[in-house]
């Protein structure tokens, strides 16, 4: 491989990195704690279930939703009050969560995540004998 080829590859990679989250928005979320699970509701309008990526790794929950522009880049807006782009947000989950049982559903632009608590932290009623 020649030197020129190397330079080109590097430049392309750099560009790809930069544009990956060129327009990223922070979705609004609700995080609710129930006795047996954590419930995360995230507003990610304009995404589809195929373009949403949810990861749980080392106690960090990451939500990424890819949203393509819905209008041409040349569109002349008479009113432009919000931007359209990917959604990205991550959380440190301190609660012990059963990662294998996490489920996600997407409807009406809202992503709902169920994070069941690990058995060890679920409230338990201890019977007093005597």
């Amino acid at each position, binding site marked *: 491989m020649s030197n020129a080829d190397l330079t080109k590859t590097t430049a392309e990679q750099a560009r790809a990195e930069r544009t990956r989250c060129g327009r990223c928005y922070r979705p609004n979320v*609700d995080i*609710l704690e129930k006795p047996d699970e954590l*419930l995360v*509701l995230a507003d990610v309008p304009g995404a589809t279930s195929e373009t949403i990526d949810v990861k749980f790794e080392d106690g960090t929950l990451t939500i990424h939703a890819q949203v393509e522009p819905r209008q041409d880049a040349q569109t002349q*807006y008479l009113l432009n009050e919000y931007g359209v782009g990917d959604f990205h947000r991550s959380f440190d989950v301190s609660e012990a969560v059963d990662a294998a049982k996490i489920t996600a559903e997407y409807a009406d632009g*809202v992503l709902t995540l169920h994070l069941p608590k690990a058995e060890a932290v679920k409230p338990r009623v201890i019977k007093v004998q005597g």
Partner: protein
Amino acid sequence: MVRNMFGIPQPWQQFRREMDRLVSNVFDYIPDGLLPAGARSLPALNVWEEGEALKVEAELPGVRPDDLEISVVGGELTLKVGRPDVEQADVKYHRRERSVGTFARVLRLPIEVDVDRVQADLRNGVLTITLPKTEAAKPRKINVTSG
């Protein structure tokens, strides 16, 4: 990072432009006394012309068609949104950023639209309203005669 002649990174310029627009528009489009008490002037709107129609778009995650009320009267588009609360018993909130309640927005339409052919489409939390222009509002080529 791409910089313009003043050395300000482009994403910041874009951000500033958006913020400027946001601030200037919010105050322009709320006729006093038209909003029901307690209703906030939301949602944010994007408005543009596309072919022979005016398009109005809003991001309304969690809203279903039944929660929406859209009307066009006297050159004004009124959008009322009731976003249901998910209040649940035996729950502790760690974060609560998603807004709930009733929102309303009145937009004075810049062109005359055909009220009978207005369409609204709600998909994945994005509402798109298509307001076709009336014949009178469509651009017309004027022939210049000389003689």
